[in-house]
Structures are given as C-alpha cells and as structure tokens.
C-alpha cells in the first residue's frame, strides 16, 4: 500500500550558475520547519490564508482535559510534529513535511492537513500544491531572504 505523504517540494535545480544550492536548501528547510512549528504551537496555520485552526467541536470529548482546548495546536503526544522535518534529494530538491513517520502518524497528518474526515476540521499545516496553496507570507518572506543570501555569496566570491 502506498504511504500517505504530507509533504511539499521546492525545486532548486534551475538557479544561477555557482549558486550554493545544498546549503541554501538546508537553510530553507530548517527555517520553514522552525517557523511552521512556531505558528502551529499558537494555533495559527502556516498555510497562507488559513489563519487560525478551527476550534474543537466538543472540548469535553476532545481534548477532554488532556491538554488546554485553546490554542488548537495539533499537539497531544508530540509524535506528529516531531516528524515535521525536511529532506534534500539529489542536492537540488527540498522536501518538507511529515517524514520518517509510522503509518498511523502519516494517516493522522493527512486527516489534519486535507480535512479528509468529515468529523474533523481541516487544520492545514503543509500547503497543498494541488489546491494552489503556498506557505504563509511571513514564511515566504524568510525564504526569499535566504535565497538572497545565496546570491550575495556568489557576488562576494566574484568580487574577490
């Protein structure tokens, strides 16, 4: 059975000659994961336009006192968010999402991210490209600052 994947990919393969692709891809991956978790922990979606995660329909049923009912932060045991990570493929493709997780965690992540269960609100934390989604504007801003840094490295090397 194919694994459920909740991931997004960035293609770094067609950048200017001499671009420090791998190090910049790693910096982007680290930053996106860090900023995503920072938003999720306060109940804000890292997906542009999604704003805040929907409240629990019946807090007495869930989370039933196991954790505060606000903010809604996708965190009970921490297992799913611990699997939110990045991976660089062939030095040019950056993959961000739920990685190296069990089937149970992957399925839970998919339920949250896609809203596939009609009884559970969609709480998107990885943008779905098929729906035209992107990361939050503040995350894109940080990515562009990192991209800029890669170009400054090229300029500085050529000016030596």
């Amino acid at each position, binding site marked *: 059975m194919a694994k459920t994947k909740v991931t997004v990919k960035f293609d770094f393969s067609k*950048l*200017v*000659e001499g671009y420090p692709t791998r190090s910049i891809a790693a910096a982007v991956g680290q930053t996106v994961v860090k900023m995503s978790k*920072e*938003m999720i*922990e*306060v*109940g*804000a979606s890292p997906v*542009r*336009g999604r*704003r*805040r995660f929907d*409240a629990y329909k019946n*807090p007495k049923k869930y*989370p039933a*006192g196991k954790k*505060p*009912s*606000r*903010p*809604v932060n996708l965190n009970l045991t921490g297992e799913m968010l611990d699997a939110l990570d990045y991976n660089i493929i062939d030095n040019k493709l950056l993959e961000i999402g739920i990685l190296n997780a069990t089937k149970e965690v992957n399925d839970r992540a998919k339920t949250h991210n896609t809203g596939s269960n009609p009884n559970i609100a969609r709480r998107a934390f990885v943008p779905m490209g098929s729906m035209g989604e992107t990361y*939050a*504007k*503040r995350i894109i*801003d940080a990515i*562009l*600052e990192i*991209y*800029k840094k890669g*170009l*400054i490295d*090229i*300029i500085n090397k*050529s*000016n030596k």
Partner: protein
Amino acid sequence: MKVTDNQGSEKKTTSTIDLVSDLKLPNDVKTKIKQDVGDYLIESILTSVGHAESPIDGESWPALNKEYRKKKVEAGSSPIPNMELSGDMLDSLTYKNTRDGIELGFIGTKEAWKADGHLKFSGEENNTPQRRFLPAAGQEFTSKIQQGIERIIADNIAEASVIDNAKLERVSTKADLYTLLSNSFPGLTRAEIKSATLRSVSMSELLAEYDLLDLL
C-alpha cells in the same frame, strides 16, 4: 507605510494603514501589495500574540493577574496573556482593502468591543491593562515586522517592473545598473533596489544572464 487612524467601538475596532498612497503603480499592483501585507500582518500578529508578545514597537504587556490566570486555566486555556480565552476574538481578526492601504482589525463583529478593551482605542476604560496588538495612529509595528512590510512592498514593485533587455546590454558600471533599475523601481532606495532584485528569481536570473549580478 504609516498608520493614519484607529477606532474602537462595539462594532468596529481597527487600525487604518496607508501602504500605497505615495506609490505611482498600476491598480492591480497596489491591490496585490494590500493583500500581501494584509496577510503578512495577520500572520505576524497571531504569531506574536500567541507567544504573549506585543507586535507593536515600544509596547510591553503586563502578566495576568492571579484571578484571571486561574479563570483561564479552569476554562481550558493557557495561563499567559495571549489574548485567548475562548479564541473567538483572534478568530475574528481580519482586514479589508481601502483606497490607500488596508483597515486591519475587527469589523462588524461583537469581538470588536472585546478587542477595544485591550487596545483602548475608544478611550473607554474597562479596568483591564492596555495590551496593544494593533497600532494606533502614529505607532509602528516592531522593527522586524516593519522591515518585512517594506520588503514585501519592494518585491511587488520589482515584480511589476519591465526592463528593456537592450538597455541591460549597454550597462557596464554599477552606476549604469542602478540608474536603469531606479527608473524601473520608482520610490525605492539603492539598498531596497538591491534587496528586491536579489529576492526576485526572475530579476536575478535576468541580471545573471547579462553577467551583471556582481555590479549590485
């Protein structure tokens, strides 16, 4: 960017922010700036507030008093001043486009009055401490957020610019390059031009093609 007005009432508590009145740009570019900055501010405010930090320059928040902290914990919420008991107020934070920018806050919702209790825009006193998460007229966001707003505006100016490739071929010095780019990016300083160019994949690739990146 300038906060030009603020208001607080039972139905509307907002900050009015001028983003584009001094920019000579097509209307579709101005609209994109408003949407990009509006979304950026909502995200930034929610993230700051959620961590019990004011997104407004110079504002700091007092801790919760003992009684209210207890009330929050009993209601299943977090014991820090994160503007969240039921979550209804923050769920209502929004913006709408105006002629010159955006109006950011609480519009047409009963949460507007609750927000004003924290922001004190109306001047009414409700015996709770001021905890600003929207700016009053003349205030600014923190420098980190302000810099993000400036970058987003510059990015949109850069993306909307059209550069004549024939003119790029005639560039041979840094001065030539910045003269050409200044004409294409109205209202931006040299530092802003450099940043916006390097942040634009299409612009940076164009300059790389003409071997002009190192002149930046």
